[in-house]
């Protein structure tokens, strides 16, 4: 339905502030109609990357281009206002003096008035803001403000949509609906989108591709499932979910089959399952219900592990449990990293 946009290509991007390197050789391509999530600890360089794409800063080395159009390079800098970038701020930054429709129409100055209105109303519908068109920002709920911010960024049909923690300020229920509506609309529009988030669950569940950043480098870029199950490094593994370490010697011999040959094993909590026929007997140290799943801390001698399970009733501390190990959830990391 919408014209297909070229991908956004970032190649060899480097940026320093006062001799401190913030981005090092970052290469990434954002595909049209796909949402790429950028995750990583704070200070990893996520915001700087966004600011460079948005043209708020100049790059030191490398390039940013949209298809054939060069946006940024060491000697080229297209100013923000001419880049056609859609940017959604963490706190939305809606124009307080304009109502919802006028906020969305803001970037459509080149269109004729009726056309502007039509596009804006279209986006108001797509983001389920139908009855709020003439409300002012301070009269909207957080979720509504956030959807207006997305609609405002999307309406001018930008080359790329950048979202800086757009859902983090919303409460869980709102976040869920708002996010579904918004991401669906973004994919339909066929625009490359970058979602900066610190929430790995959000990245895994909602992005088409996840890029993990650490100390200014992209350390892995892959499909969410692949990234979760086959992380290239321990850093990637921990960025996307909990990892526990287990010493090979703590396991009985018969359970070692099918496991990597490393001395130290890294496993997701779900690697251990409660199993009456399991080969490992452990004592319950603590048990907590975390919604659907219960989290148990188990121990035997030096060994202490966490496992999750669906349980109708929590066991008591001191109870004995039998546990089996699913080798699929034991991470196979490249040697150099482990």
């Amino acid at each position, binding site marked *: 339905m919408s014209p297909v946009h070229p991908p956004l290509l970032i190649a060899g991007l480097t940026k320093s502030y006062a001799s401190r390197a913030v981005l090092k050789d970052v290469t990434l391509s954002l595909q049209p109609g796909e949402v790429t999530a950028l995750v990583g600890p704070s200070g990893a360089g996520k915001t700087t990357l966004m600011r460079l794409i948005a043209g708020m800063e100049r790059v030191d080395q490398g390039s940013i281009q949209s298809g054939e159009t060069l946006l940024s390079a060491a000697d080229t800098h297209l100013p*923000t*206002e*001419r880049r056609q970038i859609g940017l959604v701020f963490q706190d*939305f930054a809606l*124009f*307080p003096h304009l109502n919802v429709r006028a906020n969305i129409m*803001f970037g459509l100055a*080149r269109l004729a008035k009726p056309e502007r209105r039509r596009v804006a109303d279209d986006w108001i519908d797509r983001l389920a803001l139908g009855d709020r068109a003439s409300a002012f920002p*301070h009269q909207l709920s957080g979720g509504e403000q956030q959807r207006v911010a997305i609609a405002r960024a999307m309406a001018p049909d930008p080359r790329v949509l950048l979202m800086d923690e757009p859902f983090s300020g919303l409460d869980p229920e709102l976040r869920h609906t708002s996010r579904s509506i918004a991401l669906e609309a973004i994919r339909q529009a066929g625009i490359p989108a970058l979602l900066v988030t610190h929430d790995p669950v959000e990245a895994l569940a909602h992005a088409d591709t996840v890029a993990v950043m650490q100390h200014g480098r992209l350390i892995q870029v892959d499909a969410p499932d692949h990234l979760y199950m086959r992380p290239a490094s321990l850093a990637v593994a921990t960025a996307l979910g909990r990892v526990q370490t287990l010493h090979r010697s703590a396991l009985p011999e018969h359970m070692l089959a099918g496991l990597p040959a490393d001395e130290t094993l890294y496993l997701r909590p779900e690697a251990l399952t409660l199993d009456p026929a399991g080969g490992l007997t452990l004592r319950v140290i603590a048990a907590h219900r975390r919604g659907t799943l219960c989290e148990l801390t188990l121990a035997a001698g030096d060994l202490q592990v966490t496992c999750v399970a669906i349980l109708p009733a929590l066991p008591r501390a001191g109870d004995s449990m039998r546990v089996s190990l699913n080798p699929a959830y034991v991470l196979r990391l490249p040697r150099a990293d482990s």
Partner: protein
Amino acid sequence: MRQPPPLVLDRTIALQITLAGVIALPVLAAIWFGVTAGGGSAWSHIVTNRLLPYTTITLGVLCLTGLLVCLIAIPLAWLVSLYDFPLRGVMEWALVLPLAMPGYVLAYAWADLAGVAGPLQSGLRDLTGWSARDYWFPDIFSLAGLAFILGLTLYPYVYITARAAFTTQSLATLEAGRCLGESGLRLFWRVGLPAARPAILAGLSLALMEAAADFGAADYLGIQTLGVGIVRAWSSFGEPATAARLALILIMIAFAFLLVSKLSAGAAGSQHTSYRWTTPSRKLLSTPSGLGVLGACLLCLTLAFGLPVMRLIWLSLANDVSPAQLWSPLSSSLILAALGTGLAFACALVLVLASHYSRTTAWPMRLASAAGYAAPGVVLGLGGLFLLRASGQALTGGLALGLLVWIYATRFTAAGTEPLMAALSRAPASLDQAARSLGVTGSRRFWRVDLPLLAPGALAGSLILFVEILKELPATLMLRPFGWDTLAVRAHAYASDERLASATLPALLITVSGLIPVIILSRQIARTGRRNK
């Protein structure tokens, strides 16, 4: 979204009401006296012959001053906030300096500079061989001249608020506007100006209230504003009650400004920005336009500060004025300003905290402080004298000192609240609850949470108060105790007797004493934009 906890605390409310009463009493005394005792023969004469001209001239001065203030302050604040040009860092704070210059001193200097016998016109005549009747020259002794003077002294109010709005509050919206394809002038008109409108209006309403309360500059330039009319009703007709009655009109005009600014600020909500996007990326201007902007800043500083100060210095040198007897007025000025700042600041602090914790009970204090700020110093001085008469005491010693400091608090509490409000509004709403959950309440909360939070605003607030009280003239003139002549009183005494040369030294000393706090203040203001990086 922010829901402050409802606080029903009798003692707190009682204190607020008491303080509101204390702040409002001099104003109420003046108004009550004006309404009950006014209306003598002078009143009917003024109503038939002078009221219309007074009012239209005052409104004319206010409109023109407001226009000038906006034309100077908003573009400069915009350029300084969003563009990089030579000496930008210096200009950013230097543009606040004219705040140290009292309006009447600027009027003395400019009247001398631009008068028919002054150096500008004499130079023109020498250059061209014209006589004084052969050419047209802008008349400083005119409504426009007064607006020029007031605009130059009052623009820093709007510059400060507008700059703060452009660099911190609405920065993310500016970035959003740029992403949506706007830049330069169009970004200014479509986003910058409308988003900063509440801040600009707040600054503008302060500036216009000051302009409405002006007496010194208008009197010196002979412009028949209400402020001058009030004094004339008193001095020519000997009816201070009629003066107080006229003042009521002025207070109403000032309230109208306040109301307009509050209403328009309330229509569009304000947006708070996370720290993430608060570092502006300034656009580097090309050399010619960078120098052009620098030139505009320098021109403004020269007109508002450099040229008048140099003229005053020259006058005092040419007339060989001796600096005798200035130590005592200097110390009086500093002590009075310090005492006044102390009381006004305490009132402002209570007002700000009260309105933070319970908005519903804070309005009497807000109203009282706004009324005090709107009332001209002459009227508050009269109110003070009426109170003195009621108490049956003599205007001497500690009593006179206390009365004067009280009047300062009435007049300036409102000026101290703005920076405190701003500091407090930057604090997250959840902070209060967090403090409570940690068991920190009452006075411990004040010392451990509120005060550290307010500290930056407190510094700014007390500096503004100090400078304003240093410049205050009419109330000090009327209520100071024996031997407490301030610099402003001295300067006025000389200038009103047409001994401008003798007035230059005290006038320069006021400016210098005010300059130090203003520099501290402006440097602090300039830092706020950078701190969050």
